[in-house]
C-alpha cells in the first residue's frame, strides 16, 4: 500500500484542476436545491411525519442515478482507452492500490457533494429559527446512510468502469446496476409479499436489498448493523472484482 497515498493525491489533483468537477458540483447543488425547496413547500402545505431535512435525504436515489455513473465512468475506462493504465501498471504499483485510489477519490468527491447539501439545512435553520424543522437525529442518521450507501454505489461505478474501455458503456452499466439494486429490490419484496411460498433463501437475499427501507430507518434514527454489513461487504466484493478485471483484462485484446 506504499503507493496508495501518491495515487490518491494524483487522483484528487486531477479532480481539482479539471473544470468539470466544479461544473458538476454546481449543477448537483442546483438540482438538489430544487428538490429541497419542493419538500419545504410540501411541508408547509401539509404537515408531515418527518422533517423536510429527513425527507430530503430520502430522495437520495435521484442524485445517485445520475451522479454515480457520471462520476465513476471515467476512472478506469478512460485510463484503459488512452493507455495510461499501461504506463501505470509498468511501475511497481499493484492493481489493489490503483482500484482503491480511484475508489477513494470518487468517494471523497461524492461525499463532498453531499456535505455541501448540508448548507441547505443551515440556511433553513438560519431563516426559520424553528427547532421543529431541524431535528438533528434524523439528519445524523441520514448523512450516515449517505456515507454508507456511497461505498456500495461508488464501487458499483468503479466496477463498471473496470469492465470496459468505453466510458458510455461504463456509465450505462453502472446506471443499470444501481437502478436494479435500488428499485428492483423493493419491487421484488412487494411481489414476494403478494405471492407467498417462495424459497426462504431467495426471500432472505431480497430482504437485504431494502435500500429504501434502510434510508427510512436511518432517517428515523434507527441504525442497524445489518445494512452496515450489507453496504461494506457489497463494496468489498465489487472492488475485489475490479482488481481482478484490471489484472486479467490487460492480457486480452
Amino acid at each position, binding site marked *: 500500500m506504499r503507493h496508495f497515498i501518491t495515487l490518491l493525491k494524483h487522483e484528487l489533483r486531477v479532480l481539482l484542476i479539471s473544470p468539470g468537477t466544479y461544473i458538476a458540483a454546481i449543477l448537483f447543488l442546483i438540482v438538489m436545491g430544487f428538490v429541497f425547496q419542493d419538500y419545504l413547500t410540501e411541508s408547509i402545505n401539509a404537515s408531515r411525519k418527518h422533517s423536510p431535512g429527513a425527507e430530503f435525504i430520502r430522495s437520495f436515489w435521484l442524485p445517485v442515478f445520475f451522479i454515480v455513473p457520471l462520476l465513476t465512468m471515467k476512472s478506469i475506462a478512460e485510463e484503459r482507452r488512452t*493507455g*495510461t493504465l499501461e504506463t*501505470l*501498471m*509498468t511501475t*511497481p504499483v499493484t492493481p489493489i492500490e490503483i482500484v482503491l485510489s480511484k475508489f477513494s477519490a470518487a468517494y471523497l468527491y461524492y461525499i463532498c457533494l453531499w456535505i455541501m447539501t448540508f448548507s441547505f439545512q443551515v440556511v433553513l435553520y438560519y431563516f426559520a429559527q424553528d427547532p421543529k424543522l431541524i431535528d438533528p437525529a434524523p439528519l445524523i442518521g441520514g448523512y450516515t446512510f449517505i456515507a454508507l450507501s456511497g461505498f456500495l454505489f461508488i464501487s458499483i461505478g468503479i466496477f463498471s468502469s473496470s469492465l470496459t474501455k468505453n466510458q458510455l458503456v461504463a456509465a450505462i452499466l453502472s446506471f443499470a446496476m444501481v437502478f436494479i439494486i435500488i428499485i428492483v429490490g423493493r419491487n421484488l419484496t412487494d411481489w414476494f409479499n403478494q405471492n407467498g411460498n417462495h424459497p426462504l433463501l431467495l426471500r432472505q437475499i431480497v430482504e437485504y436489498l431494502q435500500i429504501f427501507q434502510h434510508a427510512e430507518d436511518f432517517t428515523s434514527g434507527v441504525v442497524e448493523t445489518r445494512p452496515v454489513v450489507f453496504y461494506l461487504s457489497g463494496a468489498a466484493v465489487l472492488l475485489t472484482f475490479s482488481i481482478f478485471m484490471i489484472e486479467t483484462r490487460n492480457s486480452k485484446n
Partner: protein
Amino acid sequence: MENSNKTIEVTDLVKNYGRTSAVNGISFAVRKGEIVGFLGPNGAGKSTTMRILTGFMHATSGIVKICDIPVAAHPVAAKRKIGYMPENNPLPEELRVREYLKWRAKLKEIPFRKRRKRIEKALELCDLKRASHRIIGRLSKGYRQRVGIADAILSQPDIIIMDEPTIGLDPHQIVMIRDLIASLRGRMSMIISSHILPEIEMTCDRVIIINGGRIVAEGTPDSLRKDFIDTTVYQAEIQGDLTSLKENLAKLDDSLEITGNGNADTEGFSEIQIKGAANQNQSENILQHLTNIPNLRVRALNKHKPTLEEVFLAATKRSWDTLLPDTDPDESTFINQS
C-alpha cells in the same frame, strides 16, 4: 555465474489471443549494457513481446527473467528494474511536465533525496528544461515523445524498453534521441523497436527481426547482411556499348550480371548495376577490367552497401516461405495479411 551479465532472458515465450498466436516461441537474451533493436512488420508480435517483458501482460507460456528475477512470479520486483515507454506514448493531458515526472518518480520509488536531482537530470537529457512548466496536453508530438523518454530513463533503471520512440519526430529530434541513446550506452540495457531502420542500425548493437511471432534473424547488422543478402551490387556510371561490356565482364567472372536501363544523361553516361557473388569485394578487379575495355569510359564505381531495409525485407520474406509448410493454409494467409 554465467547468467549474471544477462539482464533479460526470454525462453520459449508464447502468447495466444484466443486461437491466433501473437508470439510463438521466442527466445533471446540481452546482455548488460547492450542495445537491441526489435524489427518486424506490423502485427509481428513486437509490442506484445515488450508488454510481456514489462509484466503488463501475462504470457501463455514461457519464462521471462529480468536481472534473474522471473517476471511472472515477482512482477513488482521486476518492474523496479525497467523503464518502459509504450507505443503511442500515453500521458495524462492535464498535468505539467514537471508535475508528471515528479509523480512518476514517486511511483518508481526514487528516494526523496534523489528525486529532484533525477528529475532535473531527465529534463536535461531530453532537452525539456524550457518546457518543464507547460501542460502536457498542449505540447507538440516531439515534446510529448521526449516526456515519455524522460519518464523511461527517470529512475535510471537497468533496462529500458521503448516501443517506437522516434515515431513522429522531426530529423533534428531524431538525432537528439539518437545521441541520448548513445549517451546511455553501456550503462543500461535497451530494447528499442522502430520502423525507421537506419535509426536502428546506427544505435543498436544487435538486431532481432521478428515475423509471425517468431525470431527470423538475430545478430549485428553486418552479420545479418552476410546472412541474408546473397549478392553484392556494384554501381557504375559508364559511357559506351552495354552489350560488349557484358561479354567483356564475362571474361572476368561469368557469374557477374549486368542490369541497367541504358538511359544516358546529358553527358552520355548511364548508370548500371553489376551483381556479383555475396561476401566478397571485387571492386578493384572490376574497375581495372572496365578501364581496360576500349571505347568505354568509366566515371564512377562503388560497392553498394545493402541497407538494413533490404535485410529486413529479405528476412521477413524468407520467414514467410518457411512459415508456410508447418501452419495450416488459413492461418498462414492470416499471418501474411496482418
